């Protein structure tokens, strides 16, 4: 069983939903993002998404765009990202790590070598924003061979008859993009979520995470009432941004501020009995 499957099975057993926070690699520098990553499980993260900075994040809103640019300025590269995951794994063999990013840096690294190296570093799953099922042959073989889960995105615009296409070849969990839009902007209403989830449940047995627009403990709790996990990205990155100094460098407040916010989100998520 993969780390991701194991984690969801154990959460289910305890009647709990999952909180999945996001950290952008090398934002604003390698050591700070590694410190945040290392602190996340203790602050209540059940799984963690590590963002791979890309120069042209066309599906992301301003917050993640800025984080990606800071990451690139902070020396990120695919090699550095994998190094960071390896460093994290030295102290944590349980918390699943999912890399989230765009196709081109993976293609530039070489899909096969990438999957092998990512697995070796301790990565468990991949979310590739601009790699829909129709193009997934680029990664499907190498990821399966390496034992990496491919987490598929599904959107409000995805019609019922397309769900089987999206979910074929999906593993780990399914990521529901709860709004039509970019990250960190609008929030889906409780009604919208309540309507969307049964439709997805009918088409997949995989756990379902909800992402995009979840910025408060209350919204995170709402999400896990209907789904299995809540993903929080922009809200944490916004907090990180407010702690930076004038030159965009991390300060002594950066790591604690992000982790403290994470704790609040996690408490709310874990208070929901499922």
């Amino acid at each position, binding site marked *: 069983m993969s780390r991701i499957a194991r984690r969801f099975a154990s959460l289910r057993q305890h009647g709990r939903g999952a909180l999945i926070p996001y950290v952008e690699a090398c934002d604003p520098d390698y050591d700070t993002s590694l410190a945040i990553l290392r602190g996340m499980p203790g602050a209540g993260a059940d799984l963690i998404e590590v963002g791979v900075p890309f120069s042209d994040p066309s*599906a992301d809103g301003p917050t993640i765009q800025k984080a990606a640019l800071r990451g690139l300025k902070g020396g990120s590269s695919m090699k550095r990202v994998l190094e960071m995951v390896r460093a994290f794994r030295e102290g944590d063999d349980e918390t699943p790590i999912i890399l989230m990013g765009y*196709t081109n840096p993976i293609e*530039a690294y070489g899909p096969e070598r990438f999957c092998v190296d990512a697995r070796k570093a301790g990565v468990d799953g991949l979310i590739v924003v*601009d790699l829909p099922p129709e193009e997934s042959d680029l990664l499907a073989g190498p990821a399966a061979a390496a034992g990496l889960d491919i987490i598929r995105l599904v959107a409000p615009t995805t*019609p019922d008859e397309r769900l089987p296409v999206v979910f074929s070849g999906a593993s780990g969990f399914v990521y529901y*993009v709860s709004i039509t839009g970019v990250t960190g902007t609008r929030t889906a209403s409780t009604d919208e979520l309540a309507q969307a989830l049964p439709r997805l449940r009918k088409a997949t047995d995989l756990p379902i995470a909800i992402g995009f627009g979840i910025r408060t403990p209350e919204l995170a709790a709402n999400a896990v009432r209907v789904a299995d996990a809540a993903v929080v990205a922009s809200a944490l990155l916004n907090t990180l941004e407010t702690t930076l100094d004038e030159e965009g460098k991390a300060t002594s407040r950066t790591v604690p501020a992000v982790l403290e916010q994470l704790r609040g989100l996690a408490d709310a998520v874990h208070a929901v009995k499922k």
Partner: protein
Amino acid sequence: MSATQTPAGTNSLRSGPDNRGRFGIFGGRFVAETLMPLLAELETAYRATQADPAFRRELDYYLKDYVGRPSPLWFARRMTEELGGARIYMKREELNHTGSHKLNNVMGQILLARRMGRTRIVAETGAGQHGVATATVCALFGMKCAIYMGATDVERQKPNVFRMKLLGAEVVPVTAGAGTLKDAMNEAMRDWVTNVHDTYFLVGTVAGPHPYPEMVRDFQSVIGEETKQQIMEAEGRLPDAIVAAIGGGSNAMGIFHPFLDDPEVKLIGVEAAGCGLDSGLTAASIERGRPGVLHGNRTYLMQDEDGQITEAHSISAGLDYPGVGPEHSWLNDIGRAEYVGATDQDALDAFQLCTRTEGIIPALESAHAIAYAAKIAPDMAKDKILVVNISGRGDKDIFTVAERLGVKL
């Protein structure tokens, strides 16, 4: 599929893309899931118009009476004499309404958007020519219009920004990245994904996810179809070479496509070499890039080792793009078309040459094509025929040119 096979497995080079939207290994549909159903809908709607003679009639009506087609094929006598070689013909796309080839594509897509019941249009623009063309048809049909334009381009293409505003469009400056076309493209895609219920994304070049490269090419192919007929009337034979500038590649694809199966016609795409192909400041994606994935398709891209897209550089805002349409990438790899570079300086020289000898002020984009034509014409025999695509007129560029020539306006 290997890069040398024809897309649909037929023996025509004109039958691409395949049903995955691929030209060899290039093209495809690399977008977020939210957009996938919309692209499928767009493709279905586009196929329906292709099969509908009423759509063709409607488009022909607007092309003739609004765009002003056909555009002439002009024999450039004085330039030919001055260069002393091949006979140079100019396809006068700068005479279209709004001053460039962009309106051919925009006219087709706006009619499609209307059929699809969309009420709001978003588009990206570099030089502003595509933005102006889009704002123009939105005015014509009373539709809402948002144009994304890099902040750098807003600065260097002021007349077009003002024009778009007069036409009723909202012009949104994009400050991300270097504030040029690639950043505007990202932002237009973000708008589309946010407003999918009523918005149509009107892509301005032969790039983006399938079916855009195919669709834009089809709408621009009127350039090549007319050229073929006109050169037969004028010379009784096909030209020896066709030269066109490459930004995303739409004016070039439009004039190349009808000639793909005529191997005696050499097809030459001129990329913006900026300060020189090896200066690091260029927009020559095919000559200096590697295949990769950006803006929904796999194609040649300017990128670093890590797959981060690098900024392009060109004096011409319309060519300042680190990618190129996927069909060009394929034509390059199979050797059917040749891709070369012209520098900022070459373009400036050609801009003046064309103006002085023909009384035609070309767009700086088109000046890249003229520059290469002027370079090869003298070495060609006098009975050879060279067609240059004058994709746009240069009024928008006089400020840039004046500045480079040290003239204060």
